[in-house]
């Protein structure tokens, strides 16, 4: 037994299967297909491995996102239509791109019964109203601070310009969070994603102030900058804040009318042209069940979307009542945001980067 198992582990490693020990041992006896899934590293893939270990219909080859969710797009484009992945984990930003390229399988609600427990309005559809992705959890992007070393208590976006914050802000770079950080500035100054001039004006002032100590171009830049005390205030997605919060006191300005928070869905995009679509859909249905949603939330640090799953205490900042939602959360038109990415990043390079 021991010998067989060890041999199996060897061949599993050779095939590039990553998994927890229990996951591997369990899947050794599974007859189902092997699915290739693109997931985020760290806690998210850890959560998915635990979910995969709780079923034995399919085994998994985990591939990790290597940058933002957009970094996988050129690789899919390059080999299309012979895509290697059964599902790709993503959010509004990457899903909208994939819908435009027509890479995603249309989801029939009958195939995923648990979809009935997911709030209808968060589900991504194409122009014809077809469901294109299955949401599993919700995360957020917002301002926050490491309270033990922040030079001043930040009360509003205007405080970011305070001379006390010299070099203390970690600002997301132009590939991060689809530049919603500048939409946040625009909202504060009376604009929106369709009227960005006030946002760019404020962004210029911020860049000129010398308060931006680091521009984070990856998630790890952000967490490293805050944990190493290089900076103490910033705007970032929840996984970044969660990583800092593991070791340091962090306040997220999510329920504060002086700041706007953005929410995003984390979910599954099922790729077309794959042999095991049925098994992929079954797994996704399993993963968004109430128990698995709760498990995912606990491990991955994103709040469950399944209305029958409970939100863990440490994610209370992500749970909004309808009233809170309408006053603190801003839902941008993601199609506008997506189409503006190119123009905004060039604007950043020309108007903001030279001031930093």
């Amino acid at each position: 037994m021991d010998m067989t198992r060890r041999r199996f582990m060897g061949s599993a490693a050779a095939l590039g299967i990553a998994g927890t020990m229990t996951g591997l041992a369990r899947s050794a006896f599974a007859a189902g297909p092997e699915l290739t899934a693109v997931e985020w590293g760290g806690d998210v893939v850890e959560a998915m491995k635990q979910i995969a270990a709780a079923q034995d219909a399919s085994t998994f080859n985990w591939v990790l996102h290597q940058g933002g969710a957009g970094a996988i797009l050129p690789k899919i484009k390059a080999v299309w239509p012979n895509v290697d992945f059964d599902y790709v984990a993503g959010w509004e930003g990457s899903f909208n791109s994939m819908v435009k390229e027509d890479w995603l399988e249309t989801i029939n609600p009958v195939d995923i019964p648990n979809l009935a427990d997911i709030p209808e309005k968060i589900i991504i559809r194409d122009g014809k109203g077809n469901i294109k992705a299955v949401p599993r959890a919700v995360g957020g992007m917002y301002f926050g601070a490491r309270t033990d070393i922040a030079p001043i208590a930040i009360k509003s976006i205007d405080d970011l310009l305070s001379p006390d914050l010299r070099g203390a802000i970690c600002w997301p770079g132009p590939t991060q969070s689809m530049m919603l950080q500048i939409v946040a500035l625009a909202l504060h100054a009376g604009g929106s994603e369709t009227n960005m001039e006030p946002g760019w004006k404020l962004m210029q002032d911020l860049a000129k102030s010398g308060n931006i100590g680091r521009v984070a171009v990856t998630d790890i830049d952000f967490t490293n900058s805050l944990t190493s005390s290089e900076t103490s205030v910033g705007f970032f997605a929840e996984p970044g804040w969660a990583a800092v919060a593991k070791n340091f006191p962090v306040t997220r300005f999510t329920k504060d009318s002086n700041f706007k928070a953005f929410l995003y869905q984390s979910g599954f995009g099922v790729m077309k042209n794959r042999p095991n679509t049925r098994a992929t859909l079954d797994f996704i249905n399993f993963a968004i069940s109430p128990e698995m949603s709760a498990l995912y939330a606990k491990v991955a640090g994103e709040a469950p979307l399944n209305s029958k799953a409970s939100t863990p205490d440490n994610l209370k900042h992500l749970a909004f009542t309808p009233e809170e939602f309408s006053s603190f959360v801003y839902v941008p038109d993601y199609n506008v945001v997506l189409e503006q990415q190119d123009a905004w990043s060039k604007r950043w390079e020309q108007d903001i980067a030279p001031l930093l």
Partner: protein
Amino acid sequence: MSTHSRTARSGDRVAGALAYGVVGLGLAFLAIPLAITCLMAFDARTFLGPLPPPALSLHWFERLASQADILSSLRTSLVLAVLTTILSVSIGTAAAVGLARGDFPGKGILTSAFLSPLIVPPVVIGFGLLLFLSKAGITNGMARLLLGHVIVTAPYCIRTGLASLLGADRRLTDAAMILGATERQAFWSITIPLMKTGIITGAIFAFAISMDDVSISLFLSDPSATTLPVTLVSNMRAAFDLTIAAAAVILMAVTVVLIVVLDRLVGFDNVVGQGLFRS
């Protein structure tokens, strides 16, 4: 003793002190980050914090040994680096010999063309290959990676090969042939030993660059072939992960052991070559 030679000697002393100063500072500058890498690999913290670490632990090494994806990508990286080194050294050494053999029309242009992959950012090479190879119908991850790595490492092998031949006295080969050696004999007994330093240096560069490359492999790896740095970078993306420091320490240890073994067995100088003149 003349005043002239006295000022010359004090000039020597200043110049010597300056040179030793640069050498000493340079060595210290090189050593400090290595020492810090070792320290980081044993850092018990799970986040990047100011040095020194408050506690030491082996947890990054445990992670390195226990993660199946890290182990399989380590294997991919080693296979890839060895194949890359063999191919690049063969192609590069041959090209260097061809280029060093006298003048011919277009020599300058060809030399520049061979070295031109070095001036193109790896990011561009990786992405350019991804686009082109998908059009050419080559989607195998290992084949793509190998081609990408050979493209960026072969120029180093050509350069180091050329440098060792340029420094060498070409008349030595001519002399050997005038003394009756056939061309092939002269090639294997004079040219190749003269190039030894260049070849070994090129091989080291090729292996090191292939093992360490992030920017090309980010684009060219696929689920069947993912290199170690790409796996580690992907792991680092979401959660702070110093497994890469542990991997660096192990690689350093392996290098040191390899050098000691080579030194014991054949003498390290013989492996690396000393050129024409021993001190």
